[in-house]
Every structure is written in structure tokens, then in C-alpha cells.
């Protein structure tokens, strides 16, 4: 059987889906393809199914919070970035697809289309990002939290989430802490 030689994913996406392409970033030998969030599923399907690409394995989904007061968005288009680390087992190629999303004006959660229909492995990865970063993956069949308890408030990996709930205890502040520290009785 003749296998089609590998083609450049960036040029292929640029040609096939010009409206989805935003930019491309090359760093440390890794390629990051930034695309429109609304067309993420179309780009994913194209990357998975096209001969010469065949990105058939989703390694990881990670989300980043570029919160303005702690470092900031800079020249990025939105506060949240969601990266899809995909791998072609046929050609031994790796690619990172990235989308940027913002919160709604009313403070509603950022929304990204789910890619579970493209790579079933995305289910738990999206649930993790959703749990930790508060990103809604529209179309994910299971919207429950993955790591934190079901009744948890907030999303711990956001930059505006408090690190802990108790000050570190030293001899100079032990009395202040013990005043409000809960202690279980029988």
C-alpha cells in the first residue's frame, strides 16, 4: 500500500480552512497553530482525516489563564488559551492547536466547542480543564467535575483563585490562627 508522504499541517490548514487560521507560532522546535474557536471541530476533523496529516492521537488538553493583573494578556487575543496537543502515529509528527476565548461580558464562563466527536479521549481531558479552569466545552457528553468534589465552588487553577485558606503558622501568629481555626469535637 502506498502511503502519502507527510505534508505541512500549517500550510494545509491555511489552504483548506482560510477563515479558521489566525496565526502560527514556532518555538523550541514546536509548532503552535492558533485557530478560531468557532471552527475548532472543523480544523480537528481536517487534521485527523486528511491524507498526509492523520493526527489520530490526542495527547493532552491544557488551558492557560492569562489574567491581566498577574502578568496579563499582552498581545494575546483573549484571557483564556486552550491547547490541544495532538500526535500523528503514522508520520510521528506532533502539533499544538490553540484557541483563545474570553469570558462573557456578564461574567459567564468561556465556551469552546468539544472535540469528543473527533477524539474520544478528549472527554476526561476536557472535564479536567473545565473543572480546574472553568471553561465550558459545548457538546461534551459528561459535564460533571473530574477532580474536585461535586459541590466545590470556583475553579482552582484560575489566577484569581486564592492559593489556600490558612496562613502559615509560626510562633508569632499562632494565637491569631487558633482563634478561628476549626477544631473537631467528639
Amino acid at each position, binding site marked *: 500500500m502506498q502511503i502519502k508522504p507527510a505534508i505541512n499541517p500549517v500550510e494545509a490548514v491555511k489552504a483548506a480552512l482560510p477563515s479558521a487560521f489566525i496565526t502560527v507560532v514556532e518555538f523550541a522546535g514546536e509548532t503552535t497553530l492558533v485557530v478560531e474557536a468557532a471552527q475548532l471541530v472543523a480544523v480537528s476533523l481536517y487534521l485527523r482525516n486528511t491524507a498526509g496529516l492523520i493526527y489520530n492521537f490526542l495527547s493532552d488538553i491544557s488551558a492557560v489563564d492569562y489574567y491581566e493583573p498577574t502578568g496579563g494578556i499582552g498581545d494575546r487575543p483573549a484571557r483564556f488559551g486552550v491547547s490541544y496537543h495532538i500526535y500523528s502515529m503514522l508520520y510521528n509528527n506532533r502539533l499544538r492547536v490553540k484557541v483563545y476565548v474570553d469570558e462573557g461580558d456578564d461574567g459567564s464562563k468561556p465556551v469552546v466547542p468539544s472535540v469528543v466527536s473527533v477524539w474520544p479521549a478528549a472527554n476526561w481531558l476536557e472535564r479536567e480543564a473545565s473543572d480546574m479552569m472553568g471553561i465550558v466545552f459545548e457538546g461534551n457528553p459528561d459535564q460533571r467535575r473530574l477532580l*474536585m468534589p461535586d459541590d466545590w465552588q470556583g475553579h482552582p487553577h484560575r489566577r484569581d483563585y486564592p492559593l*489556600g485558606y*490558612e496562613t502559615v503558622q509560626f510562633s508569632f501568629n499562632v494565637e491569631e490562627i487558633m482563634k478561628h*481555626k476549626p477544631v473537631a469535637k467528639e
Partner: protein
Amino acid sequence: MGVTQKLGDLGVVTTTLETAINWARTGATWPLLFGLACCAIEYMSTQGGRYDLARFGMELNRASPRQADLMIVAGRVTRKMAPVVRNLYDQMANPKWVIAMGDCASCGGVYNNYAVVQGVDEIIPVDVYVAGCPPRPEQLIHGILTLHEKIMGERIKDWA
């Protein structure tokens, strides 16, 4: 020849009911079989042949809280795990004791963050705290002996 010595010759010991019961309890304080993190590895080592917790009548870990007297919280308690630990404690029959093993169970240790309970004493009453990260088996045995001392000091009039 005093009466004590004479009775001793006959193989009789005089004591109080309190001391006898407390002594019996220290001799068979069965721990609940569970571990939460790396402290559990040291706890297993304590159970093993080298440190031999059987010397104190504690070689028998009960997998059911109904049959356990002692809860050794070996590891950090996450906030997701906290209701489970409290549930296990509630299911244990009286009299029951708790040892917080290691820094994390005692005060949160290095995990000063949103996910970890800052000391298991926030959810269950603790009798003995064992410091260390993780504590060596000798330290845990010292904690257990300290608990034995505490049990020996219990009074009938305090029992409900």
C-alpha cells in the same frame, strides 16, 4: 511476711478494675486498615518484621471500622477525602482513639493549599500527633506508646 507477698506466692495479683481494663485495651488496640499517602509506607514498615508492631498487640489491622479501636491517619487528608475519613471515624465503636501520623495529618504540612485539610483535627478529634515527614517507624511507635500512656490514665468516672 506481708499479705501481698503471700498472695503473690499463690499466683494472685491485686489491682483495680480501671487498671485492668485499661491494660487490656492497650494490649489489643487494633488499628483501622487504611493509609492516605506516603506515611502509609512507613506505617507498613512499622507493621513489618523489623519493627514488629505485634509486640504491642497491634499486628492485626481491621479492614472494617466496626472492629477497629484506633485510627492512624497516615497521610494528608484532601478536602474531597475528608467526609470519608469522618464517616469511617463515626462508624468505629467506642472506645476509639486517633493518631495523626506525620506533618500533613497534624497541620497540613507542606500542602498549604486549597485542596488539603489543614490538620485532620479540623474534622475528627485527635489524641496523639506524631511529627515527621514521614515519621520513622520508631517515631510512630513512640506515638503509640504515648497513646498507651494516655489510655492507662483513663478513669471509670469519665466513661459515659
